[in-house]
């Protein structure tokens, strides 16, 4: 056993010492693997950041009520009578004053200008009632104040204000030939709500000619399980053609399309590139074996086993790939982690999110790198182990 380990160490040392002879080719392999890992991790951290921003926005004990088949808030219409019926529904928590904890809301989109590109983009403008902010986790005004009911005042989500022009505190913006003043900036625990503009519901209803109707109703449930009761209640009333789901489920579904798409693009691209760099790794390792043919044969002639030649070659390949993987992960971390981007969400409006690199994703990247190293080293290692001694000595 000890002897085998010593043999392996000796062969590995020889391999690594001869590495400078193949410096450029080895370096090419390292960088190729690094680029593969960078591409993979860039896509995965983008998908992850997008999914977390949206999916983490939803709470289990908040119900979202939409018109059936609407899929997203922007399509939905919930009529005045339906709102009333929902408010009276079972499973909805009531405040100290006995009022149901619900918020009928409008969800409109308005134009804004993206700072980074200067292009027009659709931003969500949400009209909500006094209970609305309380139905969301961690909503705090970070600058200015809350809008006053009945006025043309808006408050702007922190992330939206950073990405889009013209929504600084104290500025006025024009929608529908009316002027609105930005009176506050709010944070919402990094959730998707930070990509929204909020205004008073009745004001929006009248200015956008939607008097009486809303698009969604949010309601605090007495418990997450109460969603079933509320759904059963809605399904059994022919006046309510509505979809009832938990806010968590709603956002999970909103996030899945886009983040799935990003992942579905990222993995095949990374795997294709990995195959390309695998070809490079094989090339490098075959050259390595060829370059060391004499050394390997000499060692074999004095009694070293084929196994040590095998392991020595494999280790060289794995080391090169691992270096590449670490470089790739580091590059992704430095360049992309925390990178802010925005894209169109399921409601045709912009969602601001950050790329998020997690240890789990880094692990996936390194695994891919090591897979390239493993397969890139395996066949050359077999060749090294099986090489006829005589050919190596006199070839």
């Amino acid at each position, binding site marked *: 056993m000890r002897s085998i380990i010593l043999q392996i160490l000796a062969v590995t040392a020889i391999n690594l010492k001869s590495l400078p002879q193949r410096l450029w080719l080895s370096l090419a392999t390292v*960088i190729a693997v690094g680029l593969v890992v960078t*591409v993979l991790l860039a896509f995965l951290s983008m998908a992850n950041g997008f999914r977390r921003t949206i999916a983490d926005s939803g709470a289990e004990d908040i119900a979202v009520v939409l018109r059936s088949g609407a899929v997203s808030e922007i399509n939905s219409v919930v009529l005045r009578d339906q709102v009333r019926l929902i408010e009276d529904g079972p499973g909805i928590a009531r405040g100290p004053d006995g009022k149901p904890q619900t918020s009928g809301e409008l969800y409109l989109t*308005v134009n804004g200008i993206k700072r980074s590109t200067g*292009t027009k983009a659709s931003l969500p403008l949400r009209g909500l009632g006094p209970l609305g902010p309380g139905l969301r986790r961690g909503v705090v005004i970070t600058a200015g104040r809350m809008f006053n009911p009945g006025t043309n005042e808006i408050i702007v989500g922190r992330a939206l204000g950073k990405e889009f022009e013209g929504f600084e505190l104290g500025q006025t913006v024009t929608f529908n030939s009316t002027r609105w003043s930005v009176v506050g900036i709010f944070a919402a625990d990094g959730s998707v709500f930070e990509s929204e503009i909020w205004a008073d519901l009745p004001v929006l209803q009248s200015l956008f000619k939607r008097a009486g109707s809303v698009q969604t109703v949010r309601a605090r449930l007495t418990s997450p399980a109460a969603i079933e009761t509320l759904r059963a209640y809605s399904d059994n009333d022919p006046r309510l053609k509505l979809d009832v789901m938990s806010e968590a489920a709603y956002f999970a579904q909103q996030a899945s399309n886009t983040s799935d798409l990003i992942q579905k693009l990222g993995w095949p691209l990374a795997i294709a590139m990995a195959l390309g760099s695998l070809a490079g790794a094989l090339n490098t390792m075959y050259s390595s074996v060829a370059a060391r043919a004499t050394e390997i044969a000499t060692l074999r002639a004095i009694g070293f086993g084929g196994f040590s030649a095998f392991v020595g070659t494999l280790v060289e390949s794995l080391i090169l790939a691992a270096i590449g993987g670490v470089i790739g992960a580091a590059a992704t971390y430095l360049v992309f982690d925390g990178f802010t981007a925005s894209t169109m969400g399921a409601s045709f409006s912009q969602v601001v999110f950050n790329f998020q690199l997690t240890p789990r994703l880094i692990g996936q990247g390194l695994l891919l790198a090591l897979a390239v190293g493993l397969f890139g080293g395996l066949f050359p290692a077999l060749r090294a182990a099986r090489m006829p001694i005589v050919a190596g000595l006199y070839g």
Partner: protein
Amino acid sequence: MNDLVLIRKNLFRRKLRAILMMVSILIAFAIFAVLASFERAFNAGQDRATPDRLVVLNKINFTQPLPISYYNRVAAIDGVAQITHFSWFGGYYQEPRNFIAAFAVDPENWMKLRDTDFVFSPEARAAFIRERTGVLVGARMMEKWGWKVGDHIPISSSIWSQKSGSHAWDFIIVGSFTARIPQADTNVMLMGYDYFNETRSFGKDLISWLALRTTSVAANERVIEAIDGMFANSPYETTTDSEKAFSKAFAAQLGNIALIVELVVGAAFVTILMIVGNTMVMTVRERTREIGVLKTLGFSGGRILRMVLGESILLALLGGLPGLGVALLLITKVRDSLMNFVPALSLYPDIAAAAVGLMVVFGIITGLVPALNAMRLNIVTALGRS
């Protein structure tokens, strides 16, 4: 035998090595062709739009409506040659995830305006104008759902409902149409506005936007000013834009796809440049002695340079052309599943041509250093001291 035979024999001297390099080149060019086509298809809206086409949208956002009365008022403006209106139906077939791109339009004028993009048979044209409950369905949508002309199909809306409270409309497919230009997407359904407007329970007399063609590009500016000026300070202010600019801005909302494509393609090419470039240098270095012999036989430096470059270009073509084949296969495969997202996805001929050009450039780049080394090789040193 000729030089090409010599080049080929040199290239395949180490078969495994040559094949490995070809595989990595194949992958890089497949990535290039797929992503470039993807980006092109993604921006197809911009490519399709001729400069004389304008869209009139609600100034707040394109999702906000406009009154139908604007249709006639804009049509009367001097410089407007053809015009139609659109209403977004938000359709789905059976299940919400079976999205159907459907619009309510003024049938006659819509077909006139879209004559440059689509081919309408005289029967389909007449039937669509005649039948109030009829819909016109593009060829790809017909194919996707296996529909035929004459079928009755229930299409639900995720937005609208009928006065009866139902979310579904029953339509008869009265005709189909095909694309006149490759960028035109036929995965769409058109219905008559009158029937739609009468049956819906709210939003009456509101449309989504207007699309028009001006008498000449020179008139664009004037028409835009006239339209937006006419509705300024009204409850429904408009913003009029060229269709190209609107498509571009819409595509840009998804993010900077072009940049992502460039970065990935760049990464793939850097990878193979390094792998293939280094391998070529190594290959030629191994062949030093033989090059010395060729020179001794009287082969000139220039001819040797051409032979090494020929080898690297041949390698790039042998890897790259199958890569284009793979790209074509992939694109045809994913075409239907991405139909809603990038309708005009196909391997565009100019992208394929650019890829072939890139292969030659790639071959020259990877072969240049070893070719120059070989050209300059001193015979006496090359033959060594044996």
